[in-house]
């Protein structure tokens, strides 16, 4: 976990979270998280549902008051006007007015952020173009497709030209084509130098979009770094052998565990230093009387890292 202190000569980072704790009754949703987001960086918060990602995001936008810990946005307190000006938030829900058109929605949220006149008009036009909704600007939101609503939801978070965007699972419920469209929007934003926090429980999204990834589980960051770093820290140079056996009896699970592997959804996963170790595994399974159906070799991914660190799958 890297946490640096800004000095007088060093500008404040877009986001600095220090020892943040938030409890809801008996449940600790955020459990002592410390985190920095660097300028122009896209940081992924990867974790399963209920890991505490959304609570962390809502704390940053001032909608949740933490029990302890501090949050500063470009050096300003999270609920200050300066922080609100600097932050753009794309909530997980479609937080739009269904009976307003795309343009009217953007105008409304622009006004709520203090924009008016020509600056509002320009901001609306810029957001419509970014979301490629210019030709649908007069369409009522309730009549838009799911993907278009998602894009408008993102555009509404960008209306006041923030410098740090918080995107809370912006692709929930979106078809693959629209998802790709959204990725392109985010990549464009990132290329323009925007600092971004992107929460997801899809490792493919984190791998594609994020410079750095923080894996969150049970309210804690259990690992963070670049994709390659996370994999290397967890597995070194080791690869994974995935094997599927006929039947589903406990004998298979016992044999896999005895050979240092893990069973997940009927799939046996082994870590190997060298691909030639597959032969030994095959021979061992044959001696144990197990009927092998399928076997493959792969480089570990974020899913593997999460499984390695928690013993659970990312989408549990």
């Amino acid at each position: 976990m890297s946490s640096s202190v800004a000095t007088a000569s060093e500008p404040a980072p877009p986001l600095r979270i220090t020892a943040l704790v938030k409890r809801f009754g008996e449940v600790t949703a955020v459990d002592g998280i410390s985190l920095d987001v660097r300028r122009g960086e896209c940081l992924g918060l990867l974790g399963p549902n209920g890991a505490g990602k959304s609570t962390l995001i809502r704390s940053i936008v001032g909608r949740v008051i933490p029990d302890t810990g501090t949050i500063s946005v470009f050096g300003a307190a999270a609920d200050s006007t300066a922080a609100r000006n600097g932050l753009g938030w794309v909530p997980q829900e479609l937080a739009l007015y269904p009976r307003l058109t795309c343009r009217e929605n953007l105008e409304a949220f622009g006004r709520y952020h203090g924009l008016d006149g020509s600056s509002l008009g320009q901001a609306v036009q810029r957001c419509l173009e970014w979301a490629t909704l210019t030709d649908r600007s007069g369409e009522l939101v309730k009549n838009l497709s799911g993907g278009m609503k998602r894009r408008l939801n993102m555009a509404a978070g960008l209306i006041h030209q923030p410098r740090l965007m918080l995107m809370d699972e912006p692709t929930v419920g979106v078809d693959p084509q629209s998802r790709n469209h959204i990725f392109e929007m985010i990549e464009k934003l990132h290329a323009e130098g925007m600092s971004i926090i992107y929460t997801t429980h899809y490792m493919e999204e984190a791998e594609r979009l994020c410079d750095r990834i923080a894996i969150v589980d049970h309210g804690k960051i259990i690992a963070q770094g670049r994709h390659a770093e996370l994999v290397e820290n967890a597995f070194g140079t080791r690869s994974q052998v995935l094997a599927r056996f006929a039947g589903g009896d406990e004998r298979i699970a016992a044999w896999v565990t005895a050979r240092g592997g893990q069973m997940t959804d009927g799939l046996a996963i082994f870590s190997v230093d060298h691909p030639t170790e597959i032969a030994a595994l095959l021979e061992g399974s044959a001696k144990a009387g197990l009927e092998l159906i399928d076997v493959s070799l792969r480089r570990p991914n974020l899913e593997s890292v999460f499984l390695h660190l928690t013993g659970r799958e990312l989408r549990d």
Partner: protein
Amino acid sequence: MIPAIVRTAMVSLRRDRAALALSFILPVTFFTIFAVIFGGRRDTTPKITVIIVDEDHSDASQRLVQGLKQESSLVVKSRPEPVKGVEQPEYTAETAETAVKAGTAPVAVVIPRGFGQNPIAFGSPDADRPTIQLLEDSSDAVAPQMITGLLQKVVMTSMPDLMAEAGSKDFEEFAGGLTPEQRDRMNKGLRQLRERAQSGETNNTNQGLVALHAKVVVGENKNNPMVSFYAAAIGVMFLLFTASGAAGALLDEAESGTLDRVLSSHVTMTGLLLGKLIYNSLLAFAQLVLMFLWGWAVFRLDFWSHIPGFIVMGICTAVAVAAFGMLLASVCSTRAQLGAVSTLVILVMSAIGGSMFPRFLMPEAMQKAGLLTINAWAIDGFTKVFWRDEPLSHLWPQVLVLLAIAIVLFAIARRVARRWEFA
């Protein structure tokens, strides 16, 4: 920020046809129904139907029947309606009783045989003398009482000669007789009375035992007195429904996440609630304007000469109902809950506050209980303006109470809305 919130809400309403209809068409429809039933464009109160059975067929009984027929407030039936064009026989005591039981008329008057021999009964009742029978439907408390009173009046106005004759007989019996001169004058007077009675003249000239001159002091120049009452009464009830429905947008926004997004901008919870209060107040005021304009256009309500009073009462009422809606919405956690709670509370408030039934006709305790409602104060204020023509300065109790209600309800709503502010 507040104008932006008002603007957003207005555009949303403009696009919601169902909400528009509920806000504007439904109240006007209900108002029209109530106005037609209770105050409409009719110039008279409903007439009472009475069945007359004349078993006597004497001069006195016929004069009594004729007198009743001339009463403008009665519809006198001596025989059932023709069936397929065939005239029906006159009512008898038995058929009249059956007709009252069947609800054809709330009351029947049976003039028995022998009535004409001694029609006037001064003093204590005589057991041997035939008496008029009244057959009543007990579900109508007013009609029998009215017929009883009218019978006494008609006897006095259509048979003054018989009354005087009976009076002179009693006088002779108790005072020891008249002198020949007095008797001559008495007979002359009786003759004149009889002639006037037979010509029908007395019905219009004799007003009864006590001379009366009725002067209308309230509503003398009103085209339609009950219309202004129902415009306010029905208006306030629907304003309350609309306000709670409109305030429910807050629940929708909380559920969709829009509220969170709005509150993460420069908009504060107080600003947001104030914006919604202003929007709801404007909506309520627009409803009142429509209601009273409709009253003016359709029911000849005197709207234009009461504009200042209407504006004062309209604004105070609109703000109070808007704050009421805000409170209900902030207390409830779902739309469904808001619907159930608001229906219950508003119907109770409207019932005891005079929106359904005028408060001045209620028992005293209910009238006092009504003062706990927005309806009562608003209706009282509008009544002062449109019915009693009171000056603006007389509206201060209603204005103060309604504004106080608005402030208190809004303050509570703001306090309760903290649950949305932060987690």
